[in-house]
């Protein structure tokens, strides 16, 4: 994509595919970070909470696999996960582990916004469904209600 995209350029299938791959890569990166983060979350939990963290981690792995396949189907090269990720909060207790899970889910929710803005209905729906799943997981981990999950405050005129 050379610098400025004209409207005519966007209508071209190749340019559209590139745009789709870029949005899919952004979501993939968030899922990879979440999978890494859930490893830390699970390490600080036991019993049913550990089971919940494990189940959520599996959901993120499924999403990662779907995104990987979608990128490859469009001729893209899925970006590999980083060997390690810096977590936004330090985790030394079960309560902090739950807080981290909430932060991870919020990051994932926001990362799917790009897919929702694409022209293809199937990609919009996929993105929206992943946003819903992340918001539900976040609420299950004890997050307070949030009126506009994933949307940056700037887009809401706040």
């Amino acid at each position: 994509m050379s610098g400025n995209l004209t409207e005519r350029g966007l209508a071209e299938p190749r340019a559209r595919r590139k745009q789709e791959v870029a949005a899919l890569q952004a979501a993939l990166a968030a899922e990879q970070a979440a999978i890494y983060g859930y490893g830390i979350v699970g390490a600080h939990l036991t019993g049913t909470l550990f089971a919940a963290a494990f189940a959520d981690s599996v959901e993120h792995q499924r999403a990662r696999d779907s995104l990987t396949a979608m990128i490859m189907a469009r001729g893209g090269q899925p970006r590999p996960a980083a060997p390690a990720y810096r977590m936004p909060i330090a985790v030394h207790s079960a309560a902090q582990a739950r807080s981290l899970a909430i932060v991870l889910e919020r990051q994932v929710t926001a990362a799917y916004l790009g897919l929702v803005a694409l022209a293809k209905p199937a990609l919009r729906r996929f993105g929206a469904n992943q946003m819903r799943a992340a918001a539900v997981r976040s609420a299950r981990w004890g997050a307070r209600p949030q009126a506009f999950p994933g949307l940056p405050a700037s887009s809401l005129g706040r």
Partner: protein
Amino acid sequence: MRGHVRAEPTRRLTLVAAGACSLALAGCKGLTALGARPKVDEDVIALDHAITAEELMIARYRLALAALPAGQHHAGGTGKAKAGGPDRAVVGALLAEHKEHLAHLRARLILPPRLATASPQPSPTPPAAPAAPHQILAELAAAEAAASDRLVSWLPEVPPALAQLMASIAAAEAAHVVHLGYARLAP
């Protein structure tokens, strides 16, 4: 309008044809006196549906708040569901979110609301809320899940920025189901 249209050209058809032509040629500004209705775009219809859905949800929450016993309120309740189920504070917080949803959806509507029909306040009438608290919350949760699904189904019709807003609201509504005490983490 081609030769294979067998029906006799009635006055209405002629007007529609005239309207269609003027739509194509002049963008139909100021030509509404001809009698042809301007075509409403799919995205406007989807947004209008979303606004109506939020109005209905707000009405549901107001009914629920009126019906929930005051005893459900825990002093200093911060929105965390206790063992007894979500209290009035939770329902009130979710109602406030729906009001925010409605305000942001209305801000995206450029045409006059209700597509220029006569009633500015449509006062949607949800079914009467049943008495038992758990039933009230169950009804709200079911309504939230259905509203979330409908929003996602309208996504293909709307422009990108509105799709993002609607997807975010759909996510909030899906989370509301959890906040209302359904599909909640066990301990």
